[in-house]
């Protein structure tokens, strides 16, 4: 009697999940299918999920882009994404640790200031930011693109929430044993927030990899351009190359998927309480 009940529940569960999965996947499938369409119409009614004449033309066009090297642009994007991730993760985690566990006068107000900076949209700070980069001589340089990552407030907030749930006694006993703040941070705190940390790595990587408008404006040398910018440039006035755009969009997803799979494995392995007695 009990077994039957749970079998029905399992089936319902999977049915619901599959239905949701199909809906979720539709746009992605459209993107994938469009990337293989050549000269046929991409937007049709009803939507043609399987291309009439599948072709790799779109992908070929991306690899052989006029005036840009796909390999170079991909390398640039990778470099930018990795550097942004490293800078963001370190600066955000260190700051989060202070906000989460080290009380000092005015820390609440300072954190409030951090949050407040998220409430002004980037659209209006773009010109002042550009001027700052110009004054610092950082235009057309990767330093100019990476340095602003120091100010990642979302990351600070994310890690702070996670670190606030850590048990103080673990940390205090380590400090009493004479461990430096740095050691406590590295050896105890970070492993204990490993899942959120891994997630933050993914988000930072995504942000860096997908960044478009800022590299577009700041970088002017052709060989410094990132992949997203180069692909975006193909969106010319003529609007007849959507299959190429979609091929580009599919290709840019691949590294993110890779980082996703890697970090999610870390998330699954849960927190590590090693280093504690």
């Amino acid at each position, binding site marked *: 009697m009990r077994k039957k009940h749970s079998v029905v529940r399992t089936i319902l569960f999977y049915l619901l999940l599959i239905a949701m999965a199909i*809906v*979720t996947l*539709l*746009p992605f499938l*459209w993107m994938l299918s*469009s990337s293989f369409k050549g000269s046929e119409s991409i937007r049709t*009614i009803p*939507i043609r999920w399987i291309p009439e004449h599948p072709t790799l033309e779109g992908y070929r066009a991306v690899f052989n882009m006029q005036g840009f090297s796909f390999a170079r642009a991909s390398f640039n994007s990778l470099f930018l994404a990795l550097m942004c991730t490293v800078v963001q993760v370190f*600066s*955000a985690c*260190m*700051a989060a640790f*202070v906000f989460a566990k*080290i*009380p000092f006068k005015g820390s609440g107000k300072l954190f409030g*200031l951090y949050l*407040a*900076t998220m*409430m*002004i*949209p980037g*659209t*209006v*700070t773009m010109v*002042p*930011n550009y001027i*700052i980069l110009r004054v610092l001589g950082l235009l057309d340089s990767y330093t100019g693109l990476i*340095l*602003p990552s*120091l*100010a*990642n*407030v*979302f990351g*600070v*907030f*994310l890690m702070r*929430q*996670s670190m*606030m*749930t*850590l048990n*103080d006694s673990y940390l*205090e006993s380590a*400090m009493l044993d004479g461990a*430096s*703040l740095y050691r406590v941070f590295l050896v105890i705190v970070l492993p204990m927030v*490993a*899942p*959120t940390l891994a*997630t933050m790595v993914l988000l930072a990587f*995504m942000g860096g990899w997908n960044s478009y408008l800022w590299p577009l404006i700041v970088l002017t040398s052709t060989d410094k351009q990132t992949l997203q910018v180069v692909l975006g440039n193909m969106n010319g006035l003529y609007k007849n190359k959507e299959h190429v755009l979609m091929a580009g*969009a599919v290709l840019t*997803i691949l590294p*993110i*998927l890779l980082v*996703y799979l890697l970090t999610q494995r870390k*998330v699954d392995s*849960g*927190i590590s309480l090693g280093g504690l007695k």
Partner: protein
Amino acid sequence: MYLPKSTGRKVATAAFLAPSLIGLVVFCLIPIVSTLVFSLMDYDMLAGSMQWIGLKNFVRILTGREFPQVLLHTFTYLVLYLPLILALALMEGMVLNHNFKGRQVFRTIFYTPVITSWVAAAVVWTWVLSGKYGLLNQMLAGIGISGPPWLSSKEWAMPGIVFAALWKDAGYYALMVLAALKSIDPAYYEAAAIDGATPARRFFSITLPLVSPTLFLLMVINVIYGLQVFESVLIMTDGGPGGGTTVFLERIYKYAFDQYKMGMASAYSWILFLLILLFTLAQFRLQKKWVNYDA
């Protein structure tokens, strides 16, 4: 946390904060203060002309005919989006936390909207939300409801955009919920099992409290981001139809880069800022009631 007092500690604390804080001052605070100054000027960004006009920009915005509409549209978005994104993220996170067959596959599937480009997503969603041939209306017809012409109608365009945005973002926030769930020390559950606690009891006494800081994050972030909704609106309706989905960011962008009126754009941003600040402060006040930080 108890910190034995010493100047070493103070220096270390400062060192931990420094990179983030310096970045904040240079790349956030200074530009933000500039925009405050701009908001009090008649600043044509392209001509480079700046003239002090005090609060005129603010008055013009607040007494203009479009402001009530912008407020309405932005809040419609928020009111519809916020509860649903929280619910979806929480549900998805919890479901994916369970060990069931094919879990990894489904997990990756639910993540794909996050990495799908908005351009591609907009094409499919425009079809889904189409009045005549759209998937949504066909499904609704199946249960006897005649659906509206979503994106072509002033009233229903925003809800349509909310659907698309929920689809795109659920996976993103579910990741954070999942990470929070995975961060719960399994010792708690083991102890509860020994005590013979029911699943419901475990959820309310262990899971929910320990996930509440992340849920709080999601709420605060989604108010801050939600009031700044932009890309989805721009790409699905561009503020249309007939000005039916104008929102703060769309206005700000158009004032800044179509009309080059940086003063107006900045003033708009500061009005938005005040709104967001109000909501965020309220949330922080209320957090004591339900967010649990003790381990």
